[in-house]
């Protein structure tokens, strides 16, 4: 299981700031979470202002 950023992402970058394991990087056209690094803590999900992160 990993969290995943969906198309609602507006590239605000709040998720990247709070990720404790640096699993999030700026992709094109949206931010992406590396599923092999993500620890499913959900920190990104709780700060996303656009509800763009799903628990997969």
């Amino acid at each position: 299981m990993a969290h995943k950023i969906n198309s609602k992402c507006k590239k605000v970058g709040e998720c990247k700031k709070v990720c404790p394991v640096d699993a999030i990087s700026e992709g094109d056209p949206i931010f992406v979470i590396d599923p092999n690094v993500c620890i499913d803590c959900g920190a990104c999900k709780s700060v996303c202002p656009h509800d763009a992160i799903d628990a997969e």
Partner: protein
Amino acid sequence: MIPPENGIISFSVLIHRKRIATELSVESRREFLGKVVKGACLACMASALPLGGKAFSYLQGSARAATLSDHEAMYYAKAANNRVDCKLCPWQCRVVDGTRGRCNVRENRGGTYYALTYGKACTVHTDPIEKKPLFHYLPGTNAFSIATAGCNFGCEFCQNWEISQAQPEDISNVDMPPAEVARLAKENGARSIAYTYSEPLIFFEYMLDAARAAKERGIGSVMISNGYVRKEPMKELCGALSAVKIDFKGFTDKYYEDVCHGQLRPVQDTLVLLKEAGIWFEMVVLLIPTLNDSQGEIREMSGWVKANLGPDVPIHFTRFYPTYKMLNLPPTPIRTLEMARNTAMEEGINFAYVGNLAGHEGESTYCPSCKTMLIKRIGYYIEFNKIKDGSCPSCSCRIPGVWS
């Protein structure tokens, strides 16, 4: 290391969280149902209503058949008045006709007990085995991971509460019979199937059949569990599984009861049983600030592990992040994790790790004899693995685990 995502299927969790949030609560649905029954048009209404909640447990028909299985459960006894007595986990629910056990996924219909989530996977994903975490079981391989709804605990810090605390009809799932699980695991190049995310013990029959099907195809099975199960079913599982990870929540009855809504003693019994059965197992202790992270408690726990399970059981002390009902506490300080690891090693535990702390030296495996770093891990990645034929290449010390 090869990133495991290539060509690997990855279903979404398919959770209808928003739908749940906008629907009526279970309680109000019950009230509503009462009125509907009086209205004598139950059958018509049932198909139009969103399914969910125990109040609907006795509804029959195609709407529920799509999401719930009618596979008969194992480990139960029939009692008077169509009641059944569940013998799977230590709660031993006495389930009256038309209701479910505490786990929400085992239901009595007319005196027969059904495993509602048999073959109904709500989450399917391929993960590195290190994510489970199992560090001494085929490092660097992938585990084809599945879950169904439900759990027999109610941990207030659960990361997967959306599925573990859900009614099976409240979340979407896919039909994936045991043989299909084994086939997909093989197709995706996984060396093992992990029963994980929620609580696999309560989808016991599904796990057992999938593990047997996988065994025939040369694929292992690992159970990621709270260990809250009765002896007989656990013994039967040991014959089909190849490794187990037990979430050892803490070392006090109070913590188990107040925070996890479970009980400590039966979990200790399971650990001892696993030791006796000779199956490979590892333990995880999620350290939550102020609740289960005192040095005294960790010392006492480590002492118990060494005395009852031996010094070679790996213990992973993992970092907590605020989630679910436990948003009032901060992430576990790194020094607490380091203190726990050091304390366990002082008490004679040979393999103590930190977890959820990518890049920390405490994620790597060291030879207990000559202290050589044997497996270097960074998060779930393995930078190198020097273990040869199950032993340290420097001093030939045997390193316990399943290495090939």
